């Protein structure tokens, strides 16, 4: 496959979040704002790219039957690295993402890519694949986070988006629910429906 296509397939056609519906938990939990979405997206992309790289390079060394445990091990290592690095250098983000950082280890996107792609393809394609998928994930999380942040908090990347009237104390009357749990499900639901529609239109 052409590498560009390989890279872009995760954007829409095979978007892991909006089309394949993988890794739903972190998607819902960490999309309360664009920056959280971006943070989670980057963390996952890092793990994805690194584990794809390692797995693609050692794929022939691993006996078939311990393939999956070996992959998990590689992934878990990178997850722990990300966990500690974030804790040390971006503690605020680390706190926001909480348990969802270690949970990257069971994320279907990461393992699925390792198993379905990196274990069969060259190092370069695997890295590109990792970047593409990671980018698609990040994109989806940021879209979700963007919608939720604008509607729910009246901000975008923390900057005020003045579309809501203010209350007596001058705070904008935002639609709070969007940064709470129900809002996450609703926005995600409609986004998936919309993506399906878009995808069908493109075909």
């Amino acid at each position, binding site marked *: 496959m052409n590498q560009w296509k390989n890279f872009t397939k995760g954007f829409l056609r095979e978007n*892991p979040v909006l089309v*394949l*519906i*993988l890794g739903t938990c972190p998607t819902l939990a960490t999309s309360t704002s664009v920056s959280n979405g971006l943070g989670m997206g980057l963390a996952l992309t890092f793990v994805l790219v690194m584990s794809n790289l390692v797995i693609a390079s050692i794929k022939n060394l691993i006996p078939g039957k311990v393939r*999956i445990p070996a992959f998990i091990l590689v992934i878990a290592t990178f997850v722990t690295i990300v966990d500690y690095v974030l804790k040390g250098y971006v503690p605020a983000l680390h706190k926001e993402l909480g348990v969802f950082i270690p949970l990257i280890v*069971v994320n*279907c*996107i990461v*393992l*699925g*890519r390792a*198993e*379905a792609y990196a274990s069969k393809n060259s190092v370069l394609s695997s890295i590109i694949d990792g970047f593409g998928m990671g980018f698609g994930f990040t994109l989806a999380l940021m879209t979700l986070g963007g919608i939720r942040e604008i509607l729910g908090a009246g901000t975008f990347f923390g900057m005020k988006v003045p579309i809501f009237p203010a209350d007596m104390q001058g705070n904008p009357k935002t639609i709070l629910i969007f940064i709470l749990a129900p809002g996450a499900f609703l926005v995600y639901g409609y986004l998936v429906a919309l993506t399906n529609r878009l995808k069908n239109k493109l075909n």
Partner: protein
Amino acid sequence: MDIIEHPGVVVAAGRDLVKVKILQVSACAGCHAKGACTMADMEEKIIDVEDFGGRQYKAGDHVTLQMGKGSGNRAIVMGYLVPFLLMVAALITGSYFIHEEGILALVSISVLIPYFVILYLRRDKMKGKFVIRIKS
């Protein structure tokens, strides 16, 4: 009566026993992205069926297995619910005598051993409780 069905393929057929291979998929595999996510999400299991109405099967036949809902529920109770309750019971009673939590934890897990040993000893008796048929 509610019947549960599961497709399978005959792998071996004898006079009294038909062995049927089924593919058990995980909940995740019910989702359409199963191609992308392959973490332990499928397993083949071989099911022994004695009740097949004396019909002739040969390896490779596609068949549908049937089981009463009662059997399924009983399996869940015996396979998951009872051990769970045992574990919790051991934990609660144990907590009155054992104050070192680590040992308590070990004790509560280890009650499962006799349970499964008992199950093992009674396995032939249990056979009759899970009636699996081949749908005609």
